[in-house]
């Protein structure tokens, strides 16, 4: 499958995404510069983590108007898969491709740590290789991952199984103690109504081999690959 990884000024996880997809999972990967507008031939676009444009104004606010973004919006409108990780999630929210917003962590601290994620919907293109209620271990690394949405949006997300991942204890219990940033409903990742655009704060590319402390992140990449393979 052909993956495109977008690099904005200040993106830092593009290399890790490339390594996970290209080296570990042996997929066809290419970088997309933020000034490029050609996404032809791609099956999935990845907006990786980092601090695009220094997180000035708001995280993702400037990157959202990059030259590549109208192409990403058209790509998503065509039903193709888009995944935003960390800063990529923030960019997707700023662009209105996903609802809600990511605010400064409730404790005001930058957090770099492992988190447990409960897979709340294992029937999406991004989670089909997990089992119902599976707990996966994926690290976070952010200062602004505190998910906010108004009551109506939250209701819609919950009712339509659009919450893919929730921060939880290692036994799957959703608790305040396992919430690393103050996110509403412990939300760590969501999909759009159509189900082809996903955003998550944790970094699957940093959990791609045992040497890094775990390889649960590959479940997400493998789900995407399985979904695309079945489609072909």
């Amino acid at each position: 499958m052909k993956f495109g990884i977008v690099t904005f000024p200040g993106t830092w996880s593009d290399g890790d995404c490339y390594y996970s997809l290209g080296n570990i999972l042996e997929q066809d990967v290419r970088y997309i510069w933020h000034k490029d507008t050609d996404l032809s031939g791609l099956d999935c676009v990845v907006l990786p983590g980092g601090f695009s444009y220094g997180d000035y104004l708001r995280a993702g606010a400037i990157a959202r108007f990059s030259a590549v973004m109208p192409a990403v919006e058209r790509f998503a409108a065509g039903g193709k898969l888009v995944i935003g990780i960390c800063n990529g999630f923030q960019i997707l929210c700023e662009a209105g491709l996903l609802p809600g917003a990511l605010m400064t962590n409730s404790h005001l601290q930058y957090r770099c740590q492992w988190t447990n994620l409960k897979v709340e919907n294992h029937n999406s293109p991004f989670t089909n290789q997990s089992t119902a209620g599976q707990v996966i271990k994926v690290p976070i690394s952010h200062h602004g991952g505190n998910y906010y949405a108004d009551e109506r949006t939250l209701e819609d997300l919950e009712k339509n199984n659009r919450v893919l991942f929730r921060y939880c204890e290692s036994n799957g219990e959703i608790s305040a103690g396992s919430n690393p940033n103050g996110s509403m409903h412990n939300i760590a990742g969501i999909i759009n109504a159509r189900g082809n655009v996903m955003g998550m704060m944790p970094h699957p590319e940093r959990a791609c081999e045992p040497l890094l402390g775990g390889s649960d992140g590959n479940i997400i990449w493998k789900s995407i690959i399985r979904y695309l393979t079945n489609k072909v």
Partner: protein
Amino acid sequence: MYLAKVYITLKPTVNDPQGLTIKGALHNLGFDTVKSVRYGKYMELQMEGEDIARAGEQVKEMCRKLLANTVIENFSFELEEMKIT
């Protein structure tokens, strides 16, 4: 030329941990009269133009598009004429 003073504030329903922390620090310094702090942003924009109504429309558009995230923030602004020196 106009000077636009733009204020971005969090919506009342949005939790503001920075404001709460600042309030705590003010209390620690003995400023017990402070009942609430809401943290926000302030920007000054110098703009070319001769039509204040049009400048106002532009600032509103800038706020909606970029300067504020209307999911979580409100905006307001003042416009004043600037003397060209």
